[in-house]
């Protein structure tokens, strides 16, 4: 227990140290603008966490990132670099939007699941292509995914601009029927919706699936070593395909959440790189689904706080994103961790070294 607490504190200390360092570097960039960095950071922090409206907006921004982060974490655990989440998300979004518009008279209890299933199925199908090409023809998942991302985005935009264009003057579908809308959790003017709860539940389910079940045990084995997994009786290629498809389904769900809970329609180019940010969310969480909740909220808070900062101060948006970039790098880096480790090592050396004459270096 004590040991657990210690590792927990070390793990906590690391990001805190990183955040402090990066905030300091950010301050150096902010000072020339004439705004006090402390005030700017206060606004960022208050905006992101200071009130229920602020916090719920952070959660709202975190929701799609949690979905895409989970999609990424899940596939990374299984050793597949699914960088195709962005495309799967677009297809998921258009699928749920079209279902929500054109099957609008079904009751919510039926329609909501159907929209989600549509998104998941198409996300899955779209993920299947790079997976099967990789397994059967040994084509790099990386390149096919990047290509398929572009295809999915362009094709979904096309659908929303031409055959299924809605009433607005932009490339967007009609509004989905009310029966397909996910309930809002923090008022009509806040994007936080039931999708967040789904995402949290999904994180827990994925965690259990990965770490507490046979399927997860085998997925992780397949992800780490093909030879080992084959030896313990796992068909690694089959497993890989299934995992990429599950990851694609989650990515599709991310798109569905944006349509059913936030925009209520498919809007061309709606994603500000959610799929790519999800990859960072996952990697920062060391591909642990539960930790993804934290990192997604962290990213959500950064996005939300940045908008607050922009509205409240005269710091430009560009600067804020530069500071964010610095922050991300520092958090991903391991010096804090190193620092703690070294200290721990030195402590141990002392106890051992005291017994004999050997010098410590």
């Amino acid at each position, binding site marked *: 227990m004590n040991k657990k607490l210690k590792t927990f504190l070390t793990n906590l200390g690391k990001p805190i140290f990183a955040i402090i360092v990066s905030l300091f570097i950010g301050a150096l960039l902010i000072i020339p603008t004439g705004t006090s960095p402390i005030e700017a950071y206060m606004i960022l922090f208050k905006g992101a966490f200071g009130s229920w409206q602020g916090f719920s907006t952070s959660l709202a921004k975190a929701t799609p990132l949690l979905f895409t982060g989970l999609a990424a974490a899940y596939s990374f655990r299984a050793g597949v670099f699914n960088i195709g989440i962005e495309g799967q998300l677009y297809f998921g979004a258009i699928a749920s939007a079209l279902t929500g518009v054109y099957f609008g008279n079904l009751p919510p209890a039926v329609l909501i699941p159907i929209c989600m299933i549509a998104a998941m199925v198409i996300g899955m199908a779209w993920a299947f292509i790079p997976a099967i090409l990789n397994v059967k023809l040994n084509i790099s998942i990386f390149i096919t995914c990047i290509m398929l991302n572009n295809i999915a985005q362009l094709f979904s935009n096309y659908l929303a601009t031409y055959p299924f264009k809605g009433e607005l003057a932009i490339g967007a579908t009609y509004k989905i029927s009310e029966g397909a809308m996910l309930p809002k959790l923090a008022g009509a003017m806040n994007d936080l919706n039931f999708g967040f709860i789904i995402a949290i539940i999904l994180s827990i389910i994925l965690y259990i699936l990965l770490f507490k079940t046979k399927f997860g045990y085998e997925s992780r084995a397949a992800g780490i*070593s093909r030879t080992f997994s084959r030896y313990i009786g796992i068909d690694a290629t089959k497993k890989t395909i299934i995992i990429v498809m599950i990851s694609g389904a989650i990515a599709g769900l991310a798109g569905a959440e944006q349509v059913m809970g936030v925009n209520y329609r498919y809007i061309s180019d709606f994603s500000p790189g959610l799929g790519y940010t999800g990859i960072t969310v996952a990697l920062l969480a060391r591909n642990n689904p539960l930790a993804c909740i934290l990192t997604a909220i962290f990213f959500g808070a950064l996005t939300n706080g940045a908008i607050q900062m922009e509205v409240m101060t005269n710091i430009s948006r560009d600067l804020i994103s530069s500071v964010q970039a610095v922050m991300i790098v520092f958090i991903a880096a391991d010096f804090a961790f190193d620092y703690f480790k070294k200290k721990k*090592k030195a402590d141990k050396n002392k106890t051992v070294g005291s017994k004999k004459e050997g010098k410590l270096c």
Partner: protein
Amino acid sequence: MKLAVEMLNICKQYPGTLANDNVSIKIKRGSVVSLVGENGAGKSTLMNILYGLQKPTSGVIKINEEEVSFNSSLDALKKNIGMVHQHFMLVEELSVLENIILGMEPGKSMYIDYDKARIEIEELMKVNGIEVPIDELIGNLPVGLQQKVEILKVLYRGADILILDEPTAVLTPQETDELFNNIASLSKQGKTIIFITHKLDEVIRVSDYIIVMRRGKVVAEMNTKDTDKYKLAEHMVGKELPPVHERKEKDGSKVMKLENISVKEDNGLFALKNINLTIKEGEIVGVAGISGNGQQEFAQVIAGQLIPDMGKVFFENEDITNLRRTECLLKGISYIPADRKKEGLCMEWSVAQNSFAGYHIMPKFLKKILGFTFIDDKKVNKNAKDMIKQFDIRTPGHNSLVSELSGGNQQKIVIGRETVVNKPKLLIAAEPTRGVDIGAISFIHNYIMDLRNNGTAGVLISSDLDEIFALSDTIIVLFEGEIVCKVRAGETTREELGLYMAGSKRQESEYE
């Protein structure tokens, strides 16, 4: 005589382990020194320090009686120290030539003078009597040749002091003989050689001087001529080794039957050709042969990991040809693979996670909650703890990463898992004691013998003929995928087997 190497009061502290505890060794120039000791004694660590790969926590190193301080291998290389690592440092995607010259490429400008390299290497091969195909990709070579490449690499760098960390662990007897000839001639040229091994015969054969390590300390040093195998073993283990358990006569029923098994490789050649064999309860069939002659496929077919292209496999009179590994495993076919690091274990996982790999499908590790099946961590941990106790696995705990264990202890995890978790009816053991110290070898041998005496059938694949003779009831030799010889263990000799293994002899009719 002058000293080539002095390592004085070396300490090396890893988090949690004091790998070298005030070690001092002195090595004379031109001598062959064996460094022996149990797994995890600190041999590799000491040599890695000498090669500049690790920095000692404290201590002094002198080369040719001159104090040095190494920050990287480059510094050691500059002092003419070369090392053949326990795990080969070769790039499979590159050619032999490229591997040898890597880091010391000939040529005046930035360009590599490939012609010069070729001439130099050919010269080197001639002088030392080592022969390798220099344009072949490393990945296409058998380990024996890879080993030679490693030695050439060291010689190419003009090393005077050669460190060989368990060079014979993966070699066949023939290859080992060749290596020893090379060592002898190198020593004649005045080179100093430090040689780590767990095989005591080799120590006696090849070295002038022996240093024994245990638990991070040097516990004994002696001239080779003053000792023998048995005394040495005592030094290493600290006590006398128990004798191999007695073989009880058995005549059980057929457990496994292979009928006309053939396996084709991608390139159209046969990995296994027309294999027929029966294995009985309480019988250990030793499979001898130079590695790469179908042993791996042979094991995999029996284990259910590979479905043969032709032929049938029967287990307890049931046709299991098309069953998968998992089903075979549940039927009681256990398999200890030759490569524990790549196949047998997941190095990134803990002891506990590894301790039931493959058996994770068995109900005894599962629990049901609300109709869903989950892995029961409590049972998994208990299993791991029991195993650690029963096999005396040296590890800080069941949650430690397997990669942090010494090789012998890693091997014990594999053996424990394959023999205890689900009592095997048939145990396939490939190289079960590779890289393992003599204490552990004796333990493993006795354990396998006990299983046999209790009725388990065994297939023992080993490149170590001593091991084959010690454990087998029946011996077969695989050559180019075929069984070229099948004899009772008592009715043959090492020399005869050697002929079969080299393919220069073929049995006309087998016993029975």
